[in-house]
């Protein structure tokens, strides 16, 4: 078996969120880190919720684990009671060294994948995730870049070319890869618009900034408006950067 990318699949297990249709198939070639979490109000001690809900949540996770395994994934699972869901997701991502976090939305059989390539930074991780997840499927992969005003066609060409090469190295046939470039558009809107005709989106994580603080992370906005599953590829952890 090739290198299975670890994908974090967070599910609010007690609020009726379940594994949406198509997601187990989507993750057939992944190592799924199944995170069942339950966000509780501050008036409640996490242990209190655990005392009451652990069994029920555990049963549901058992079910989901079976579904993922039946589809072909390897599964590792955690159940967390928390006051702060985002902290839990971030911690799990780091602890399990997940390459991407999936925003689990329903999808049909995956035939085409949109990969939003933002810049040269992180293309390696992006390529590994795409190759790991879709290398052994027949899905076509579209590399998409929204060019800024001071980027020449040549720059963008080099960027996407590099990405195609990486994917080829990792076993994706070039005939399955397409590239697409748009200009003069706001990147986020362009991605969401383009994504409409695709089954799933793979994109990079953005650095937190004031606008992400106000409007939320771009990946979350895409997930909210696209309504299909979105893989958010994580930045390299600082530890690895220091080593590199």
């Amino acid at each position, binding site marked *: 078996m090739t290198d299975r990318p670890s994908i974090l699949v967070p599910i609010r297990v007690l609020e009726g969120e379940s594994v949406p249709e198509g997601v187990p198939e989507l993750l057939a070639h992944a190592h799924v880190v199944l995170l069942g979490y339950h966000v509780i109000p501050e008036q409640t001690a996490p242990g209190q919720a655990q005392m009451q809900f652990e069994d029920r949540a555990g049963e549901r996770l058992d079910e989901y684990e079976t579904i993922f395994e039946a589809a072909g994934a390897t599964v590792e699972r955690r*159940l967390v009671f*928390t*006051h702060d869901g985002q902290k839990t997701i971030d911690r799990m991502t780091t602890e399990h060294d997940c390459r991407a976090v999936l925003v689990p939305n329903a999808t049909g059989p995956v035939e085409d994948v949109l990969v939003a390539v933002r810049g040269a930074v992180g293309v390696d991780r992006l390529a590994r995730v795409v190759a790991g997840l879709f290398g052994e499927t027949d899905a076509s992969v579209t590399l998409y870049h929204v060019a800024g005003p001071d980027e020449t066609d040549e720059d963008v060409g080099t960027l996407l070319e590099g990405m195609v090469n990486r994917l080829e190295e990792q076993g994706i046939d070039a005939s399955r890869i397409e590239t697409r470039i748009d200009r003069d558009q706001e990147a986020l809107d362009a991605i969401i618009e383009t994504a409409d005709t695709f089954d799933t989106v793979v994109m990079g994580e953005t650095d937190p900034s004031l606008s992400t603080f106000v409007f939320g992370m771009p990946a979350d906005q895409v997930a909210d408006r696209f309504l299909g599953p979105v893989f958010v590829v994580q930045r390299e952890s600082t530890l690895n950067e220091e080593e590199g």
Partner: protein
Amino acid sequence: MTERPVDVEPGGQNVAGETPVEEPEAVTDDTTVHDDDVELERTIGLVGGLAIGIGTMIGAGIFVFPGLAADNAGLAATLSFAIGGLIALLVALPTSELATAMPRSGGGYYFISRGMGTAYGAIVGLGLWLGLMFASAFYLVGLGHYASAVFAELGVALPFSPVIGIGLLFGAALTALSIGGTENTAKIQNVVVGVLLVVLTGFLSYGVLDAVGVFGGGSVPEQFFSRGYFPVLTTAALVFTSYLGFAQVATVAGEIKQPGRNLPLAMVGSVLIVTVFYVVTIFVATSAFGADRLGQFGETAMVEVARDFLGLPGAVAILGAGLLATFSSANASILSASRAVYALSRDALLPRKASEVNLRYGTPHVALLAAGGPILVLVATGQVELLAEVASFLHLIMYGLMCVALIVLRRRNPEWYSPSYRVPGYPVVPAVGALASFGLIAFMQPASIGIGILVMLVSYLWYRYYAGDVTLKGDI
């Protein structure tokens, strides 16, 4: 990440056949880990911990007690607050060690039940629950006084005293809010505490400068021990309610991030900060008016002090701050009381039902009602000093026993006891802490002592009847 195993195995069962919930497998900086990969996330940082401690404490010491304390002890009330602060510090240090060794929900109750056994644990745990109710009721009556002062300020003459009515109203509203509210209360608490500290720092700086004569005049130096020496100690016993908050940090120890670092800092830090504020406040207040006049103003004396310095805007600012502070103290105490109920119910000392979580709101409605309901009865008495002293009594018993538990654990040194913070000056600090805690009780009014002892007795009998077979003591 430091991961420490937890190796305490509770056993036995209560009358209803419930057994204590199993202990977690390990405690990390970010979680408490149970078996089967179940984790409880830690989400409260240092700022949150300090806000709980300071927010619980500052309401009483600054906004309710200055008038009462000055009336009792004169200018020497400053010394009373300093004594209270010293005792709190002597207890906060050992508590920090225990909390880093056992960062679990329930605080003092948890340490004592694991260190000294179920009987002591039950007395302290039930006492903590009731003590927090007395404290909450005390804050709510204080809140009633401030709200009444607002009416007086607006010139609304009421044919009756609205103090108790308003206290009851806010008590009921707080309980309802805690059950049905899902807004981010911790963030609000942080902001409230921040605002309070800023307002107070400004006000007190002005007051101190005024008192030493910068703005002309200065104040008439008064005889320090104008009421004699003994009232200094009885006043210290009375105002000790102003120092109960640091133990509330320990009741949420299970939710504090990096407990080894943040718990000691939050507990000791909040005690030091409020002690400074208290001492300066009393100094400023007594030098503005002299103890006699200050005493006549009663619970809302600080409003008059502010008016004296800064006119109407000062009075309004302190009124607003007083409302905020007493409200946040009452709120924090109700939430802590509900945590105490949870810890007791987890260990089968109360019915499991008591910590049940509401399916609609996700809040522990039974525990919150079990705290909020009796609080209303206590508020209805309107006895500020009695409520304060009983609250202090029940906490002081816990404080003294925590110090004893620390000494017991250090002497036996069981394998599972490995605190990351160690109290300086062992065994003197915990020994003096225990003696001082128990000693302070002797200076309370007989009625408070009587009620306190009654609560302990009932707690013990409840334990014998309901959970006599439950063993919680760690292997030592």
